[in-house]
């Protein structure tokens, strides 16, 4: 038995100093026995925590939930396939040669789940004052030159997960040249939409800042899509608009002065395929400053529609829908 083997206990308790820790981890990488024992010990030490359950201060919860809104979950380590099909071949390094290697080493080194937990260098790198070898452990990101900074906690880039995914998808498709054109499109589309139906948008922003903050991020996303289209319709005598991007697979229904749905009734959106089969989509109460994202498949929709339905919505329209042909 190696002299190191006995230290697996202290290692599991985080009781090695920095030098000892490094030396042990070197040993651990090549010692299957230690890896197995460490896995068991880690599970064991974690149970010690049961001795000291203490409810955290309530403020922590809201603070944390605010914080994660700005942090993007990392992609899985083992799923480079989906990624590689989205990028030009020239930018595709051999997946067998990149990143996963080091990650795998780290994993086998850590043995148990500890690779995701403490002993994995990556898991602890975000701590204050620590150097950041994160890059080395996240090579998949290098495949996407335009992808947003994965550690989004400190900047506006990491608004939220869906937005980032969309941004990736877009940036992997369109080159830098397309970007300028897109900005132009964005400006034109934004002006169009604002003129058509966004009269109340600013007002909404002021009134419901928190709710709208996330929604407007998604709306900006939609408006900046290279293929954004607007389809004006009239609902109950009020102008309203479907804002659609097929490339993003997203559509939003906006109406600045929509009447509220009657008691016991609701507005309901529909997507229809080329055969005009309606699929139920989001329901909403109406009223001023309505803006609702559709939930269904937009990419393959041929028509979008809105109707009033009994509260709770219907499986198929029970009143004549107002239809926009895409």
């Amino acid at each position, binding site marked *: 038995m190696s002299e190191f083997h006995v230290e697996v206990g202290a290692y599991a308790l985080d009781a090695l100093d920095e030098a000892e820790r490094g030396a042990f981890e070197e040993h651990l990488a090549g010692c299957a026995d230690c890896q197995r024992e460490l896995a068991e010990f880690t599970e064991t030490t974690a*149970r010690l925590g049961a001795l000291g359950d203490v409810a955290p201060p309530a403020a922590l919860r809201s603070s*944390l939930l605010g914080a994660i809104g700005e942090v993007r979950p990392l992609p899985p380590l083992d799923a480079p396939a989906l990624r590689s099909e989205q990028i030009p071949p020239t930018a595709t390094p051999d997946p067998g040669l990149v990143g996963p290697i080091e990650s795998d080493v780290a994993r086998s080194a850590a043995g148990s789940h500890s690779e995701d937990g403490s002993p994995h260098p990556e898991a602890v790198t975000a701590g204050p004052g620590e150097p950041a070898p994160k890059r080395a452990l996240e090579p998949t990101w290098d495949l996407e030159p335009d992808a947003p900074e994965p550690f989004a906690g400190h900047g506006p880039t990491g608004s939220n997960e869906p937005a980032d995914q969309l941004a990736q998808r877009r940036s992997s498709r369109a080159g830098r040249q397309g970007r300028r054109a897109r900005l132009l499109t964005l400006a034109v589309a934004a002006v169009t939409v604002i003129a058509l139906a966004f009269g109340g948008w600013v007002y909404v922003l002021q009134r419901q800042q928190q709710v709208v903050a996330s929604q407007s991020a998604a709306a900006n996303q939609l408006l900046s899509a290279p293929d954004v289209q607007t389809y004006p319709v009239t609902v109950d005598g009020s102008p309203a608009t479907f804002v659609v991007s097929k490339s993003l697979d997203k559509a939003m229904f906006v109406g600045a002065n929509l009447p509220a749905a009657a008691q016991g009734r609701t507005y309901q959106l529909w997507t229809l395929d080329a055969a005009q089969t309606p699929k139920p989509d989001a329901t909403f109460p109406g009223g001023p400053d309505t803006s609702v994202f559709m939930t269904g498949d937009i990419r393959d929709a041929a028509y979008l529609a809105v109707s009033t339905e009994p509260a709770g919505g219907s499986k198929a329209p029970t009143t004549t829908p*107002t239809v926009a042909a895409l």
Partner: protein
Amino acid sequence: MAEEVEVSVMMSVPPSPTGEHGPDPIGSGAGDAAAELIDLLRRSARGHEDAFTALYDRTCARIYGIVLRVLRSPDQAAEVTQEVYVEVWRQSARYAPEKGGVLAWMATMAHRRAIDRVRSVSSETARDQRYALREATPAQDNVWTGVEQRLDAERVHRGLSTLTSIQREAILLAYFGGYTQSQVAALLDLPLGTVKTRIRDGLIRLRDALGVEL
């Protein structure tokens, strides 16, 4: 609005795929608690903040408890706990269930971070503070009254009782005290080699007493 009409294209439409992450499984059988945490973490990995919120609610007393016990300062503990959960959120897609439970994964991360905080240079003062500062407010323990947690604690107490007093003390000094094995050796006035062995033997005994299996 429009008059009531018969719509020709009446057909039953299957429920929309939004039902995929339907009702939150809070309150389901406690026996599936571990599987439930895995499910919550998986959904967190897909960006579902509601799932992450549920995961937090389920685990925060354990995680905060560990961190607080090591750091002693409630302010620092809250700070580190938040760091831990942000990291859990970031790493959620990289958790591998076959390598251990979600709670153990999180507890390991939390403990390491708390220890790092204790040992960081800047915490020379923090180290002083953590003894000067108030003890973990025991009143808050009452907030956490889950039967499961009580049973867990009971089991751990029983497990610890099977250890020799030196094994037990060495393990608790290291885990909750945040001491290195050398410091533990000094505190117990034992040779370092002895402490290393006691810690490992103690963990083996505790592992068996708790029935830990992977």
